[in-house]
């Protein structure tokens, strides 16, 4: 089809489509009410008359990529033959290709010459869509009925008239109805911004040309991807990543298996062998799985525009009822957890195909939800404190990983200012700093994570929930690089000692004076840490990214402190050489050590968490120190492939 457009018109339309979508994004950022949207958990798309995506926003969050056309098409099915200019529809249905209930999409048909030529779609993460807990993330949910309001396609504007009845029904099922109405208005306006641009193009170029352009831009991207695939050797690559556990199953990590096959100009991702859905919200429906594959692969084609042409270049095999193809009414609000596993697994496979873009595993997204009544004010208003932290990204081929960066589910997402949080919530943060030694060691180390510690002030009826993972499926290194560290939250009740609550829990009561603290992991290491230039280790020590003690343990680099006040350190070259030789000799043996002995040493305080994970490849219940035998076996199997296989022995 592209042949029918001259090159100028094609290029002009291609850029104009993207601009029209970016304008939607800009409008939504400036007018939204949901702080989650404001911090950039949103996306926008322009679709052709068939609902295929012709353009997505440059700043869109990765996690929505590749799902917007599904929801557009579901709306088309629902309202076939009954769409009119000025209509706007809403949908948030993960079982129809959406992500989770919080992501609510508003879709507007765009008419030219009395016929639909396109659709514009604005998708934003609302701060609440009802359900059993504030923020609509109940980790104990097993099915959708506790999760929140499912919106199958509804009409919110009919021929330009606001359907207040429907909108109010939706808003009334949430904890913040006034803001929800504000977001509906903001998103509906955003879709109109795109409509205005498309109609301008129709006026200038004519309906047929614009229609051809909407298809041609997809063909263009498909052609570009296929050409690159065809230039790669055919082959098969396989890997597995894990969710920590199934709360309703026995001990053992939950595998997500992917086999990637490149044949000619096609690529297939086959999830056969992945675990069935589990008894928590950490399941993914097909739309979200599709999105994870698209986003993971897009990372290796960063320059190409995103649209359905990209999505046509790959196919997915996902067994029905598996953790990557959950069906109604299985709970899927926590789809982000399988999502990030799929993304990182795809990073790992593509890293072998494109070593110049290779990257180890990134830290895991974490999401903290606290809510209750603010005791600082006489009227004790409801407060909702939702927080997410940046962490470290994986080491790269020739480059350390990025420090403190947003999770891979969307690198445009912004972390929140503590000063804003402290105004709005009865919470005082006492520490929010880079965590020394959080990065996975490697010739190119992972990026550093952080630790944030907060104390609850005057508050009543407050509970805390935490959505995270990789407390066991610890962030891994590649090419000989080491894992970083486990995720998990600790709570210290006023006047008591610290307790480990781990990476997933819900509705734990919390009161004034209680302190909660959680780290984010650094990224996994890339390459053998014993081959890291000692000069780089010294620099890391001067900046406190790495401690003197772990410089020795992880890198075999012995550092002498000359004058800490002046940041003067030096490498003891002879001692370093000796220590590195010693580690080389012993490290394969450490991985064979009886895990029970490791657990015992941990309980006795002879080994710390980082020793247990990085040296022995052992996973424990980090609170009690008891061994997780099945999880450890799974972890060691991958450790051998990703880390130990990349070590040189002399």
């Amino acid at each position, binding site marked *: 089809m*592209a042949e029918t457009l*001259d*090159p*100028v018109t094609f*290029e*002009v339309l291609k850029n104009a489509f993207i*601009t029209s979508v970016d*304008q939607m994004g800009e409008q939504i*950022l*400036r*007018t*939204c*009410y949901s*702080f989650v949207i*404001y911090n*950039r958990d949103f996306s926008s798309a322009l679709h052709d008359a068939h609902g295929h995506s012709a353009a997505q926003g*440059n700043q*869109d969050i990765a996690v929505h990529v590749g799902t917007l056309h599904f929801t557009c098409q579901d709306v088309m099915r629902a309202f076939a033959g009954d769409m009119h200019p000025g209509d706007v529809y809403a949908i948030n249905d993960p079982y129809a290709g959406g992500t989770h209930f919080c992501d609510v999409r508003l879709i507007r048909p765009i008419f030219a010459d009395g016929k639909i030529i396109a659709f514009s779609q604005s998708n934003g993460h609302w701060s609440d869509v009802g359900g059993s807990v504030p923020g609509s993330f109940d980790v104990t949910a097993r099915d959708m009925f506790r999760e929140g309001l499912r919106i199958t396609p509804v009409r919110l504007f009919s021929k330009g008239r606001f359907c207040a009845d429907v909108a109010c029904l939706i808003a009334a099922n949430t904890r913040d109805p*006034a*803001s929800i109405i*504000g977001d509906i*208005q903001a998103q509906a*306006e955003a879709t*109109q*911004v795109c409509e205005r641009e498309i109609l301008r193009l129709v006026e200038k170029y004519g309906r047929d040309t614009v229609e051809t352009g909407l298809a041609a831009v997809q063909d*263009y991207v498909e*052609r*570009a991807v296929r*050409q690159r695939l065809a230039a790669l050797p055919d082959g098969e690559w396989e890997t597995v990543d894990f969710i920590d556990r199934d709360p309703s199953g026995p001990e053992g990590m939950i595998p997500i298996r992917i086999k990637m096959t490149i044949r000619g100009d096609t690529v297939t991702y086959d999830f056969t062998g992945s675990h069935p859905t589990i008894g928590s919200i950490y399941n993914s429906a097909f739309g979200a799985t599709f999105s994870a594959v698209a986003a993971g692969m*897009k*990372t290796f084609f*960063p*320059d190409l525009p995103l649209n359905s042409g990209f999505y046509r270049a790959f196919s997915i095999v996902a067994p029905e009822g598996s953790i990557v193809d959950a069906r109604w009414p299985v709970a899927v609000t926590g789809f982000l957890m399988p999502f990030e596993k799929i993304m990182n697994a795809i990073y790992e496979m593509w890293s072998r195909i494109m070593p110049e*873009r290779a990257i180890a595993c990134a830290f895991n997204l974490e999401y903290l939800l606290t809510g209750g009544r603010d005791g600082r004010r006489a009227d004790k208003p409801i407060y909702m404190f939702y927080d997410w*932290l*940046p962490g470290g*990204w994986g080491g790269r081929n020739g480059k350390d990983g*990025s420090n*403190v*960066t*947003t999770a891979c589910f969307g*690198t*445009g*997402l*912004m*972390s929140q*200012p503590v*000063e*804003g949080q*402290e105004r709005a919530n009865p919470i005082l*943060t006492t520490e*929010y*700093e*880079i965590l020394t030694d959080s990065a996975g060691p490697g010739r190119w180390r992972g990026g550093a994570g952080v630790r944030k*510690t907060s104390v609850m002030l005057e508050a009543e009826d407050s509970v805390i929930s935490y959505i995270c993972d990789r407390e066991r499926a610890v962030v891994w290194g590649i090419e000989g690089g080491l894992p970083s560290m486990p995720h998990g939250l600790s709570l210290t009740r006023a006047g008591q000692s610290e307790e480990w609550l781990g990476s997933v829990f819900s509705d734990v009561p919390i009161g004034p004076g209680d302190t909660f603290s959680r780290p984010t992991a650094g990224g996994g290491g890339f390459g053998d840490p014993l081959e890291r230039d000692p000069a780089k280790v010294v620099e890391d020590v001067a*900046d*406190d990214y790495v401690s003197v003690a772990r410089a020795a343990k992880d890198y075999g680099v012995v550092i002498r402190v000359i004058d800490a*006040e*002046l*940041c003067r350190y030096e490498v003891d070259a002879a001692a370093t050489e000796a220590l590195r030789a010693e580690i080389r000799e012993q490290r394969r043996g450490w991985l064979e050590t009886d895990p029970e002995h490791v657990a015992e040493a941990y309980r006795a305080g002879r080994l710390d968490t980082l020793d247990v994970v990085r040296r022995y490849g052992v996973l424990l219940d980090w609170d009690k120190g008891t061994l997780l035998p099945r999880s450890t076996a799974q972890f060691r199997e991958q450790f051998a492939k990703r880390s130990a296989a990349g070590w040189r022995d002399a």
Partner: protein
Amino acid sequence: MQSLRVAVDVGGTFTDICIMDEATGLIRIEKTASSRDPIDGILAGVDKAGIDLTRVALFSHGTTVATNALITRRLPRTAMICTAGFRDVIEIRRANKEDLWDTYKDVVRPYVPRRDRLTVPERIDAQGNVVTPLDEAEARRVARILRRREVAAVAVCFMNAYVNGAHERRMKAILEEEMPGVPVSISSGVLPEIFEHERFSTTVVNAALSPVVVDYTTRLGERLREGGYDRDLLLLHTGGGVMTPGSVKDFAARLAGSGIAAGAIASRHIAGLCGYPNSIGLDMGGTSTDVSLAYDGQSRVTKDWHIEFGYPIRFASIEVLTIGAGGGSLAWTDEAGSLRNGPQSAGAYPGPACYGNGNRQPTNSDANVVLGRLGTSLAGGKITLDEGLAAQAVREGVAEPFGLSVPEAADAILRVANANMSDAVRLISISRGYDPRDFALVAFGGAGALHGVDIARELAIPVVIVPPNPGVTSALGCLLVDIQHDFSESYLVGAAEADPGEIEAEFGRLEAEALARLAHEGVADADIVLQRSIDMMYQGQWRSLAVPAPRPIGAIADLTEAFHRHHEREYNFRRDDAPVGFFRLNLKAVGVVPKAALATHEPTGATPEPSRRRPVWFDGTAHDTPVYDRTSLPAGFRLAGPAVVEQVDSTVLVPPGTRAEVDPYLNILIRVKE
């Protein structure tokens, strides 16, 4: 007798000097090569232009010294002192990336490395209460460590200091005792606004630049004084005004991006002289184009900007959108067979193919040469362009791959370039609620006047203004400015609870500070203008909108109504039933610098003949087109397109179907639509 006004704009390649004779209003331009130490280039230019510094009444300057120091990290060793537990605010940032997909493209490192970020125990809560008192012994110990490290500047950045700056002030006093002479910036002094990263980032930039710009302005001031200039050197800042060296020390960060605002100011001023209070500036150079917008005589201002992504500088700045499209932008074909334009550029060297320096890829300039729009002899004959090489590049790069004739291919290249620039203009105009049909387009920079009319047509802008010296218009901008300072303060109150008396008192405090600073700079009371605005939002929204506010403040209801109106213009909807909140009070304090009027010229009635004719391609046809020498065109002269007007620093294209006239200021106004 002091009768000259001199403005200097130092760019990467050239230093432009604009000299205005106050008596006649006539302007003269001197262009000289920039030097390694920009001051040498400036003095060389002053010398070359034969300026007698004892006759200079005003010397103003736009400088890239601060911007370059940031980008190259040639900064003096700067330390940061933070609240215990918050050492890494400027490294954590907001944690987002600029390029969302390329995992090998990182946000650049912070301006202060982690080792030079120290902490002291202290804490103030969100209401301004002391939670942990400042540990004075520890504060002193940290100060001594910094002295041992011989740091050259310090930023003190404490949590919630925007509500209570007492700890920061005390820390500063201790530093001044322990390390006298080292400049100290405190966040509550630099920018008393909520949100730690934005405030700290601005404070750190301010601290790090302070020694750089103080050294620079002191040296330049001395050199000028040696030459006999006895007034204050005026420095252009991003807010679109100037400040004196007395303020530079404390607000060094305002000089970051100094040069960028100059073009926007010049464009606004020229359009205003022509009777267009609404204007869009299109400053197109060799590698990039800067787009700016003025509405009702005021430049659009933003606080959301940075020199490098991730490190905001929250001082009011004239909003300028820069895109990678210029005369040297390369046209290329991507792997999937699409015709692209930029952002890669052939740069100054080797430059476009027609320069004959070895580049064989076609650029916009080559396309303009092929179409006859750009002549082959430029800069008064100093530069010769090779038409054959231009045609060869266009043929091989675009015509052959797409099966087009060479002129068709050249036309295609320019249409893609113009569409990209139109998209940029669209972003700054239509998407902010402005209708381009109400605007004039001021086309300048070396290449702006070649593309201006095509872009205006694309956007239905009715008129294009080409200033007399398009290539050095930015320097003119430095000449047209007032002393200006911007103040702001967080004011987080719902409209329903807001007390006009309290707002008036807050503004009163800001105004007292403003008056003191302007008085310190020697501005007479009669020359002071104060402009208030309030950032407001619907409660629950996250972005605010600046709404002008009266003095005295008046009724709250009038303020909220003004907000509803602004919101509707900008975003196309209003929510009369939704509660409105205040976010921030802003004060712009201007010390008006009397401006000499630019010279006007009487129509002579002369009808100059074209210097020659040549075929120029428009819409697929070669038109026999007259070529005029701009210096020969008198005020009042009218001509109908097609025509080309050539001058030393630019070429003006007047396409068929348009009419142009020379106004009394010798601007060329091209009417695109009647």
